[in-house]
């Protein structure tokens, strides 16, 4: 396998650590060796990310054959597992699948599955890591979803510029000619490409931009057919649920993927079970705040254990290294699984200004409120990020809050909503910095932003286990 075009990323698994440490133990008896090998094999079969890319033969050796593709079974398993979307919005997968199936039945059309591996967010790496390492798990998920809703064709959309398409076309050829053909498509490397109506537009031969949907894509998507758009990780989860059952998935043993970032170091894709303490995911790093979810996510203050739970305002609670990583414990959605720790010597206002500028530039500029609001919000944050004595701080804050309200829910896609969420959370989490800046003081000036605002140039892979 040639993984040389994978952007730099390290991969770490916190799943089933006990079983894994046994892998290289020297054992005396044949039986013991067997038991260890079995434990390791079972553990690996429940994980999303193998330590190295798996071809179809290796995939089947670890995960076993794809279970029977009975629509009723798959739907029931999806429902009982409580599986929700891993692409950002955490929407229940079963409800979407049921809606597509029902829409197709009513319209007497065959629905379409779109596996969303676009991952246009420059800080995120988990979907690409999954596609490189466990492509067959994703393709199993596509086959299961297609069988469940009765689709007759499927697409797998990946970000261009990484060599993923060629790799996946090859990978797909290793599979037995399945009932549902999967077309692998490269989408432009832009933030908006992965938005569901943008994908539909692109697959229909149009630009990869969100479009106004008089009817939602689950009713009218690719080629006018009801379309199930599901993140690639969501589909990989489905492939594990089909094998190990919804009870296993609900038990807390099932893992999900996170992209962990700290300062300028190489991002790490971490696989972890719900309830894992934050510090186990991020390692022994300290910081003042953490961006949870992605560039449409939420900044939360990070504090020493003694001060955990402090209410910073508007539902934003301070967390600590001991807080478990779940939407419930953090009090905010996990979005696309980004966890970016802001060190003490960086400025959250500089980071946010940089991200907002990027998000404003990535806006398709098609919708009035987004076109007018996002650049203004970015410019206002640029002001907040500049330490200079000023008397208009309150005015800037008021403008930002008002614009955040004005752009929310008023576009053809949720890009402005996510942008507003980020800005609002930064106003709360970095309120003290904004005060200091307005008095001309700054703790962490002149450091360039740590979070990327464009896709990194492809380079030699540094994948490690």
């Amino acid at each position: 396998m040639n993984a040389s075009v994978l952007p730099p990323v390290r991969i770490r698994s916190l799943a089933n650590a006990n079983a894994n440490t046994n892998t290289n133990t020297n054992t005396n008896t044949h039986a013991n060796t067997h038991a260890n090998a079995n434990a390791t094999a079972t553990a690996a079969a429940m994980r999303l990310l193998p330590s190295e890319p798996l071809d179809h033969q290796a995939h089947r050796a670890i995960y076993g054959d794809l279970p029977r593709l009975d629509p009723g079974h798959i739907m029931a398993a999806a429902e009982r597992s409580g599986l929700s979307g891993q692409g950002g919005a955490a929407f229940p997968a079963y409800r979407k699948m049921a809606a597509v199936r029902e829409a197709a039945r009513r319209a007497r059309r065959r629905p379409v599955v779109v596996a969303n591996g676009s991952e246009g967010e420059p800080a995120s790496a988990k979907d690409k890591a999954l596609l490189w390492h466990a492509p067959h798990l994703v393709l199993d998920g596509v086959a299961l979803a297609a069988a469940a809703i009765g689709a007759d064709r499927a697409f797998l959309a990946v970000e261009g510029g990484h060599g993923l398409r060629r790799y996946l076309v090859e990978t797909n050829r290793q599979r037995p000619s399945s009932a549902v053909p999967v077309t692998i498509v490269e989408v432009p490397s832009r933030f908006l490409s992965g938005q569901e109506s943008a994908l539909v537009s692109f697959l229909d031969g149009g630009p990869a931009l969100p479009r106004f949907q008089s009817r939602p894509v689950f009713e009218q998507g690719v080629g006018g057919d009801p379309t199930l758009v599901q993140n690639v990780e969501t589909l990989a989860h489905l492939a594990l649920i089909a094998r190990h059952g919804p009870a296993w998935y609900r038990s807390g043993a099932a893992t999900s993927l996170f992209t962990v970032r700290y300062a300028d170091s190489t991002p790490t894709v971490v696989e972890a079970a719900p309830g894992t303490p934050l510090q186990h995911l991020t390692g022994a790093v300290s910081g003042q705040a953490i961006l949870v979810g992605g560039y449409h996510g939420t900044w939360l203050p990070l504090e020493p254990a003694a001060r955990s739970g402090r209410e910073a305002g508007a539902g934003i609670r301070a967390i600590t290294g001991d807080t478990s990583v779940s939407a419930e414990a953090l009090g905010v959605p996990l979005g696309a699984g980004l966890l970016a720790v802001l060190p003490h010597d960086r400025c959250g206002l500089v980071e946010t200004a940089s991200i907002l500028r990027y998000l404003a530039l990535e806006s398709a500029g098609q919708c009035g409120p987004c076109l007018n609001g996002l650049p203004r919000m970015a410019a206002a944050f640029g002001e907040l990020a500049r330490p200079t004595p000023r008397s208009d701080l309150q005015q800037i804050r008021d403008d930002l809050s008002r614009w955040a309200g004005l752009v929310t829910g008023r576009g053809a896609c949720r890009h402005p909503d996510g942008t507003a969420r980020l800005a609002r959370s930064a106003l709360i989490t970095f309120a003290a910095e904004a005060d200091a800046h307005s008095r001309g003081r700054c703790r962490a000036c002149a450091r360039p932003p740590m979070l990327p605002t464009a896709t990194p140039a492809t380079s030699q892979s540094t994948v490690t286990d």
Partner: protein
Amino acid sequence: MPEPTTATTSTTSTLRAAVDWTACQGHGACADLLPEVVSLDEWGYPILQERPVPAEARRRARRAVSECPALAFLLKR
């Protein structure tokens, strides 16, 4: 994604204002015709009320649809 619903159209259906944001040019004709449910933001784009179009404003609502120069103003059941 929008909430999938299996709502069936009923005969006593309500009408709600909606805008195709990719088409709207901020002309504001809709707000002039239908102040009950449409106002304009600081950039001239419509702000829609959640509540349905009142019965007595339905005719004006239909006029707003036909008079929107960008064909962006819509009514949804």
